[in-house]
């Protein structure tokens, strides 16, 4: 069951799919293009938001890595940055924002609060956003230094660049149940 809910890698990679030479070239080119054109949706809820501003502003300048353009509509974004404490009241909102994003999409969990609940082990706080949505990169720290964030972003870029794309492959990809369907079918 656990693997069914792991809907993380969006354009899937069946190993036998991307073996051809053309496939590899296309994958490389697409990965290269995608990793430098991340549109961020900052889901900023708490103090980490200040750190996000610092990363985005001129001194650390996230635009050097091609992720400078925050979109405040999930439909235009492909990188969801969850910045700050997510409490149980907000969890459905976060889930909904994630579901509204178009694929391919990636999630970065920014700070320990988003990654694990941080020190808020109390009645109100979600203990890590990976309890409701899949996460690609976790950035620790309370708040993380901007260098850490850039490091995390570069890790995500490596991940994106090394994804294989099944372009030109006419075989049908296996149907992937949405999270909601899994929950409802229980």
């Amino acid at each position, binding site marked *: 069951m656990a693997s069914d809910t792991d809907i993380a890698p969006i354009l899937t990679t069946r190993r036998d799919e991307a073996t051809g030479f053309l496939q590899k070239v296309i994958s490389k080119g697409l990965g290269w293009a995608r990793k430098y054109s991340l549109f961020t949706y900052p889901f900023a809820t708490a103090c980490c938001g200040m750190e996000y501003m610092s990363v985005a502003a001129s001194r650390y300048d996230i635009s050097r890595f091609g992720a400078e353009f925050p979109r405040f509509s999930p439909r235009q974004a492909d990188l969801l940055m969850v910045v700050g404490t997510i409490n149980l009241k907000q969890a459905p909102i976060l889930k909904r924002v994630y579901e509204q994003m178009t694929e391919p999409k990636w999630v970065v969990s920014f700070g320990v609060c988003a990654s694990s609940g941080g020190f808020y*082990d109390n*009645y109100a706080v979600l203990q*890590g956003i990976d309890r409701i949505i899949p996460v690609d990169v976790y950035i620790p720290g309370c708040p993380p230094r901007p260098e850490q964030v850039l490091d995390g972003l570069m890790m995500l870029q490596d991940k994106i660049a090394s994804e294989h794309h099944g372009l030109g492959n006419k075989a049908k990809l296996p149907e992937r149940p949405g999270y909601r369907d899994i929950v409802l079918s229980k």
Partner: protein
Amino acid sequence: MSTFALDQIHQQLPEALVERYVDRAGDAWGVIKPEQIPHVAKLLKERLGFRMFISMDAVDRLHLPAEEQDPRFEVLYFLRSVERNELARLKVRVNEGDEVHSIRGVYQGANWGERFVWDFYGVSFKGHGDLRRLLMYEEFKGHALRKDYPLRGRQGLMPERPLKDLFRGPGTNGVAD
């Protein structure tokens, strides 16, 4: 430390005052009867110039020594007079299920304060008119800041992924961590 407010309450509404005392920090407190608090608030606001509602809170005294456990809750009021530079500290003691009379009709600012106290301690206010939860969601059961509410009593609004994790607190998915 000026005790003008408490002196005036003592003189003008002696039947409302249960007790006066000075706490360990040296601040004067007045304990008011639950049904008299709107009259006291009216006196303070309209005649004595305490026009500023600062805040409200409550204390659950469940784990205090036995003689302090009854009544269980204290509702605290902080009212300030800017002219006199004085903070009036009032409190009302009630047991579970008892009602405090609302001062929303006197201080509009007490609207959210009373909703907060209702949300987190479950003390209800008579005559408030719109006593909903302030911060927690409607589906939440119980009152989170009561001493007998479990520290990790998380009530999820949506199902969580079945995740096991040694290092963080349990989620609400029912998987034992």
